[in-house]
């Protein structure tokens, strides 16, 4: 005991400094419980990457994307190209099995000593390379799913945010319209509209003709019918966000309505919007394949996964694998997108889990 220590009264709470020792650097570090500051997006991406199913889906989707981008550059066949031999249609190349060469091709290879590019999935009944058709079909289906969801996103968010923000009579009327569209039997209207639009647009030129009238009609149908779910969600979200104090604060300092919607309200609805869009893509792909299957989808010779599956049905007895390729592709894409959507929902907004 040194003399510097003040005298201690019995039962006093006074602490004796000599009993303490300074913390080492390592011990000090342990006290830092605060982790690095992180943004909302970074945090949710981290959560997403910890979900094995979501990571698996991302890998699968990335693989499919790479294949459908690279394959047309590598494979020397076109999606509507009928295999020819000496300028004539190669009749021996019909309905080849995977990795099989036609009789004419075998002759050609033997004569010239070259190896032709293999028909990875065989050929179809019109002597077209089936692999490249499936690749293009996947491209079409994914593109339809993606752009249809984009249309739904834009219309739904605009409509929902206007309705939710304005409130009152505007909201009432806008939501009645949504209610009516929501209760339309969608498949019936889609079939009806796609027949009509297909016939109406058939004569048109320019961008519509390039895209194919059926594709355009699918987009229009989606734009007309499927935005209502998104609009309802966005409206509900905005109604609850709108009540927050920071919105009131922004209003009181004279911020304009569009700016409040853009800067304060929409960012807080972002997770709902992202999740809904992600889950919209597989449902759009489903609808497109359904329409193509009953012959109302994209126009021949452009393939889509649905129309390929439908075409494969005729030769079911002899070539069952031809149904397998497009069918498995649809299942794989839809499964991966569904799992990714679920993962996004868990990462962005765990409250939404149902």
């Amino acid at each position, binding site marked *: 005991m040194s003399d510097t220590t003040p005298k201690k009264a019995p039962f006093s709470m006074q602490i004796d400094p000599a009993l303490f020792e300074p913390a080492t650097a390592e011990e000090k570090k342990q006290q830092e419980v605060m982790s690095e500051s992180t943004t909302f997006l970074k945090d949710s991406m981290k959560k997403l990457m910890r979900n094995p199913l979501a990571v698996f889906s991302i890998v699968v989707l990335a693989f499919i994307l790479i294949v459908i981008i690279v394959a047309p550059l590598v494979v020397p066949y076109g999606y509507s190209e009928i295999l020819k031999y000496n300028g004539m249609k190669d009749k021996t190349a019909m309905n080849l099995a995977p990795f099989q060469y036609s009789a004419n091709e075998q002759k050609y290879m033997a004569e010239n000593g070259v190896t032709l590019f293999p028909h990875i999935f065989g050929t179809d009944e019109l002597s077209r390379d089936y692999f490249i058709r499936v690749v293009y079909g996947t491209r079409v289906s994914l593109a339809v799913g993606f752009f249809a969801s984009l249309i739904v996103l834009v219309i739904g968010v605009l409509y929902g945010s206007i309705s939710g923000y304005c409130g009152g009579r505007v909201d009432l009327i806008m939501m*009645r319209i949504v*209610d*009516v569209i929501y*209760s*339309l*039997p*969608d*498949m*019936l*209207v889609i*079939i*009806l*509209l796609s*027949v*009509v639009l297909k*016939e*109406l647009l058939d004569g048109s030129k320019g961008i519509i003709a390039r895209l194919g009238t059926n594709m355009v009609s699918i987009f229009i149908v989606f734009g007309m019918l499927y935005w209502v779910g998104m609009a309802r969600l966005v409206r509900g979200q905005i109604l609850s966000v709108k009540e927050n104090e920071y919105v009131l604060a922004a209003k009181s300092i004279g911020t304009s309505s569009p700016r409040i919607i853009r800067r304060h309200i929409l960012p807080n609805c972002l997770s709902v919007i992202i999740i809904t869009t992600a889950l919209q893509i*597989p449902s759009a792909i*489903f609808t497109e*394949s*359904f329409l193509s*299957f*009953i012959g109302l989808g994209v126009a021949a010779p452009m393939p889509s996964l*649905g129309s390929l*599956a*439908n075409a494969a*049905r005729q030769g*079911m*007895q002899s070539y*069952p694998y031809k*149904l397998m390729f497009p*069918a498995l592709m*649809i*299942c*794989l894409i*839809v*499964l991966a997108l*569904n*799992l990714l959507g679920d993962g996004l929902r868990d990462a962005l907004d765990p409250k939404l*889990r*149902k």
Partner: protein
Amino acid sequence: MARYIVKRVFLAVVTVFIITLITFFTMNAIPGGPFNSEKASSPQVRAALEKRYNLDKPLPEQYIIYMKGLLHGDMGISTKNGRDIGETIRESFKVSATIGGMAALLAIITGIILGSLAALRRNTFIDRLIVFFSTLSTAVPSFVLATLLLYFFCIRLGWVQVWDANHHNYVLPVISLALYPTAYITRLTKTSMLDVLNQDYIRTARAKGVARFHVIFKHALRNALIPVITYVGPMLASILTGSMVVESIFTIGGLGSKFVTGINNRDYPMIMGTTIFLAVLMVTMNLISDIVYKLVDPRITFD
């Protein structure tokens, strides 16, 4: 509550009315009329036929004539074969309703059983298996499943007879229609069951010594089924429209195939008849499931 029901019924009537409008005018916008395909018919014959079906009148007048007939229960006659549309719909709906009803029943029963099982045996092998299969089956389109089933069981194995006039085999079409709703109901039941099992009243019931059987069936399941009720309406709608493709794969002459051939033949009364019939059916189903939902769970408020 009464106000809510009145509002919903009013909305349903408006919806059906809008559907008749959309269908009538879009269908007439399709180029080509019902009598364009008969090349042999002379202009006089065509004019006479068009007069018979009132096609020579302006469109709004045609619509009013049709709606008058419809409200008196007359759906007109087919421009293709001259048969009464109401009669045709009644016949083909019998087939569709049998398949659709069985599929719905199958989906509800298996979905609830599997969903509850997954929730009660949470994080066990059974749970994982059920979740795995329900996730997988939401990714399989009904037409793919129907074609595969047809191939394996009819063509490859020969266990099931292909559908024809004398052999009505419901197994395969019902399974193909039921798969997706089964998976959906399974997921729905599981999540809501898990939710309910964590409620205080379940703990209370357990604590006071109620038998496990009673806790599950009297306390948990009853409450867990409330969200399932809301899905029944949309499910029936999706089964009915999904049956279009499945019917065509199994070559069953149901309502869906009538709709599609009606469009291809420009058979105006047939298109109108099938669309309105299906639309009324779906709107009614949704209405009933919404009202029942509110009746069983008074906490829910719609605005």
